[in-house]
């Protein structure tokens, strides 16, 4: 890539006021560096990924509302986690978390266990317990 071809589209890193470094060749064929504000191709795959993540969150929200899953599933998706990551943060086995994902089992959990989930999702026990499938940040 030539230095003049380094893309200057409006990318995600530029939103936080930064740019990315590229290695590119100058007119004499010598390698040099240039800063880029972003690249459209990256934005497209990034947008698609964010869209898919939002769909997963929306699905979890509906499932909680319908009483199919417990709030744990919703907050797991909201925090971009999977069973393994929740397991690593809470220190509980995956099969145990999957059991807690059932509304019936979840309703009987004590505060000590709930606190571990709340810490993992960075919310309070009340927020976790009282989540009924509404929109939330």
């Amino acid at each position: 890539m030539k230095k003049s071809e380094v893309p200057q589209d409006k990318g995600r890193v530029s939103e936080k006021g930064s740019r990315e470094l590229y290695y590119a060749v100058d007119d004499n064929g010598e390698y040099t560096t240039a800063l880029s504000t972003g690249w459209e191709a990256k934005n497209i795959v990034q947008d698609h990924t964010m869209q898919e993540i939002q769909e997963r969150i929306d699905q979890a929200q509906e499932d909680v509302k319908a009483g199919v899953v417990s709030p744990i599933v919703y907050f797991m998706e909201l925090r971009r986690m999977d069973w393994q990551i929740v397991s690593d943060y809470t220190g509980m086995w995956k099969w145990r978390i999957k059991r807690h994902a059932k509304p019936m089992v979840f309703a009987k959990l004590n505060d000590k266990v709930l606190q571990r989930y709340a810490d993992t999702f960075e919310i309070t026990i009340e927020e976790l317990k009282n989540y009924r499938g509404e929109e939330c940040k």
Partner: protein
Amino acid sequence: MQIDFEHRITAHCENGVASNLLRNKGLDISEPMVFGIGSGLFYVYLPFLKVNHAPGLSYRPAPGWIFNRLAKRLGIKIKRQKFSNPEKAQRVLDENLRNNIPSGLQVGVYHLPYFPEDYRFHFNAHNLVVYGKEGNEYLISDPTMETVHRLTEPELEKVRFAKGVLAPKGHIYYPIYIPQQIDWEKAITKAIKKTCNDMLAPVPIVGVKGMRMVSRAIRKWPTKVGVKKANYYLAQLVRMQEEIGTGGGGFRYIYSAFLQEAGKKINRPALLEMSDEMTKIGDLWRDFAVEASRVYKKRSNQTDVYNKLADDLLHLADLEEEFFKKLKKVI
């Protein structure tokens, strides 16, 4: 308390931390030299490991390897420590800062406040340097960022003790010895040979063979997992390839820059020619990303698009096989 430390933005975090830490110690080494001598160019496909709900793919060796290989080849000694206790991890870092030692840290990016929302995934192989502390705020030099940042004590603890795959466990590292004399020729030839062997490895998931395996997988995705999931997998593939400093085109350009600099340093004009060739291959990797991004624009003929991408990747594998065979002969 602030250590005299020059922050420089680089394309990739691990190269950047290594290069900035060594420069601070008086060894002037560029990012491409770190990447090349650390044999940073790699390719491995891990279909059995799901990352963000998609098959795993890595364009670089495991975190820490680039710096370790570089250190070994140049005779540098690095001190590394991991912790089970966050308080102890902080004490060791604070002690280092008091002793004027800028320290490299492995961190998770999910909780990094200065990262754009779109990049905040549970990815734990990021690297940054702490070069000072004011009150309860750490001064952070993140080599993928244009400027320096600050993190509070709890914020830093959170990213140092992120959980999940490749959990950093407070991992701290810094060079403790740099030799007076360095045999660049030996280091460069050894490193290039290693990269050639990696990329030509007779292992189905590694190097050009790994690329061919991914090509076969891409071709099957739309029928095997459905178009929706295939599109998601593809997005993850391109994200791993071209996101901040990692992967396809970006790495090829850094490697080309390395071949050019190395060729001049040890006076091997053949490496300059190889550098030109690698630059062209890098351009094709970027074309591949552009081609892939088209999938999300037009809805028709999805299988054709996937077949075209599979062909493109196959072509890249052929070019790289030829390239690394030639490079091996030249060196």
